[in-house]
């Protein structure tokens, strides 16, 4: 199983994960805490009253489907790498990238829908309820951009034949991060659906 027992025997086993995997998981925890702060702040604020109801744009549903699909294509790319099917791996990564960009574009369109529905980020007509939606979507989109950069790096490595069944770390981490970002969005969407 293990490619270099000599090296690892110098160390205690830890959790059995590569250090970079652990770093990533910890960073994910910190992102979770950020959004925990936003969403619990949302609830606390709403329960104190003076809270304006708003309509959630229907376009968000399409975006959610896009990002769910991108998770699937990412997983497909991951499996392909594990089976050394490098052509499919590249296709999978490119499809994921495109879907990710489509999601971002979709979020931008949804911003427009929000404005059209008189839900504003700031200004005299804004209420924290609406501002929160922009913050949730915006901060998530920011992290999604970092995910896209990560994907692009992995794609470049894949093009250089540096991703295959015995070099799974980078694509494994990218997959984990991408699923996290997708899951995070679905959580936010569900949260807004239930609480708007």
């Amino acid at each position, binding site marked *: 199983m293990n490619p270099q027992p*000599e090296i690892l025997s110098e160390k205690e086993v830890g959790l059995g994960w590569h250090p970079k995997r652990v770093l990533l998981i*910890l960073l994910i925890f910190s992102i979770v805490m950020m959004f925990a*702060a936003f969403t619990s702040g949302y609830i606390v604020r709403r329960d104190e009253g003076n809270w304006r109801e708003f309509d959630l744009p229907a376009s968000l549903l399409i975006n959610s489907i896009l990002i769910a699909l991108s998770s699937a294509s990412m997983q497909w790319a991951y499996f392909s790498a594990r089976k050394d099917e490098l052509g499919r791996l590249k296709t999978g990564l490119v499809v994921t990238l495109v879907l990710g960009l489509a999601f971002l574009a979709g979020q931008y369109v949804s911003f427009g829908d929000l404005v059209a529905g008189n839900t504003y980020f700031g200004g*005299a007509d804004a*209420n*924290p309820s609406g501002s929160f939606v922009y913050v949730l979507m915006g901060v998530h989109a920011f992290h999604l951009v970092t995910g896209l950069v990560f994907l692009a790096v992995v794609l470049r490595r894949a093009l250089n034949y540096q991703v295959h069944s015995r070099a799974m770390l980078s694509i494994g981490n990218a997959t984990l991060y991408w699923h996290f970002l997708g899951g995070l969005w679905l959580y936010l969407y569900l949260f807004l659906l239930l609480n708007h």
Partner: protein
Amino acid sequence: MSDMTPKPNLSPSVEAQGGRGSAPVPATEHDDHLLHDDHHHEHHDQHWLWKYVFSQDHKQIAKQFLITGIFWAILGGTLSSLFRLQLGWPEGTMEWLKPILGGWVSEAGKLDPEFYLALVTMHGTIMVFFVLTAGLSGTFSNFLIPLQVGARDMASGFMNMLSYWFFFLSSVVMFSSLFIETGPAAAGWTIYPPLSALPQAIPGSGTGMTMWLVSMALFIVSQLLGGVNYVTTVINLRTRGMSMSKLPLTIWAFFLTAILGILSFPVLFSAALLLIFDRSFGTSFFLSDIYIAGQALSNQGGSPVLFQHLFWFLGHPEVYIVIMPAMGMVSEVLATNARKPIFGYRAMIGSLIGISLLSFVVWAHHMFVTGMNPFLGSVFMFLTLIIAVPSGVKVFNWLATLWRGNIRFTAAMLFAIGFVSLFISGGLTGIILGNATLDIQMHNTYFVVAHFHLVMGSSAFFGLFAGVYHWFPKMFGRMMDEKLGYIHFWLTFAGVYLVFMPMHYVGIAGFPRRYYAWTGFDAFSQFADMNKFISIAAIIAFLGQFIFIFNFFYSIFRGRRATQNPWNSTTLEWTAPIEPGHGNWPGEIPAVYRWPYDYSKPGSEVDFIPQNVPYSQTHSSNLPYERDMAE
């Protein structure tokens, strides 16, 4: 190099490993960074810029954090001396400070009231975040984690370097804010809105506040990059035999501190982000129904109390982020210098874990007067008071470690004992404040100031000093001067008690914190002498710190040369060369066989057995169950 040879008998396995060198390992996988461990030795003649400035070596980064922390501590202390001058001599003239402070001193020789607020704000921010978080954790987590767990470096040297440089950037922004026309942030270190949310509220709410927020955002990034690295290193890079139950308490403390940081700093980031939006993008997260100069603002629907929730959700764990590294180092220094195993090793770990968990569920004890539901208040009160239990366990164990120890009063030991004393004194008032009914009376008075300066400010500084005196030989290969250390200790120890004890009295009488002038209140005029006394003590104690600064820098260049293990300590860092190079151990990393507290073990010929000595070499002192492990 002759003084490098360990004393005979003391650390046999170091000698045994001395000549072997690291065996070349075939590289098979591109991704695997563990391999870099063994490539490090190749970069021998690096450019100085990479060696000293953009270094990725954890020891170098630790020193960068320490030096930057010292710079901030001097500045933070200077600011406090300035506002103590104002409090001690409210009628006095500050004319003589005009050359330095310029426009902040009025024509009449008075300190500008706005500037007073800026002073307390910057003092708090600098001390809590830049000195006692970055300067303390940044220094010692960086320095000790790889050395004590037996790793060549941090999990990611690059991220570690970034962590320092983000801190540096954040420092630059905060420092620059001191020099802008309208002055630095002035809403208190807790930056409550609306004062902090409305740029037009007071001069300090303008550019100064913006720079505060930018600086803190950078600071949080730095903390996260550092924290994830510390945790990963402890989880993944422990040497053979170093199970979690053989870790020195320092490492447990740094580990849990880093976890607290990873989970709580992002929340402050969220709060800061919302505040930035309120300030500059017209949102109203924290603002509602506000009139400024008779004008109604359009902001509707926000809640300033929401900010307090978010802030204190970080703020309370933050105080433990400050104190836990000190607790860990004090445990280590006490055991080493009492020549006794730490009392209740597992209870010490358990109480650290308990404190860490509880620290997330008590934040609202800072908000008893925000009009919260009394039932909710009593829940938070209950949870808050429970913290006294793990805290009590720790204090008991420290005292029991000292009990009938063969105590060596090194400078580090004095500061460690001082830490225990201060932690008790300050913790007791915490229990008073934890009672909602008492806190409603005491909130925002000097009683609170006295509480947290003893339990957090002074204690953590004492932990920091203990750490510097103790690990200086490992950092710089030389010893600090002990005599100067004693003088420094007694001045500081007497100083903090003389400063903060009287504050309890004035606080109980209702003396409010953050007031520029108290002379207008008859009730407080009786404290004029007391305030003068506090100010004199504070300034003397502050000046006393320059003894340390002198000792520190002088010893780096001129101190007595250190031996490899000057305190006869058991932990792994002392098995590395006097000044460890890149990669820490020239040969193989030592393996670990025992816990870190085998001091004065009955039957042993020496009074300490390092962690890397196998049981097969200590037949005379092995306990029954250890005999099996000796085979």
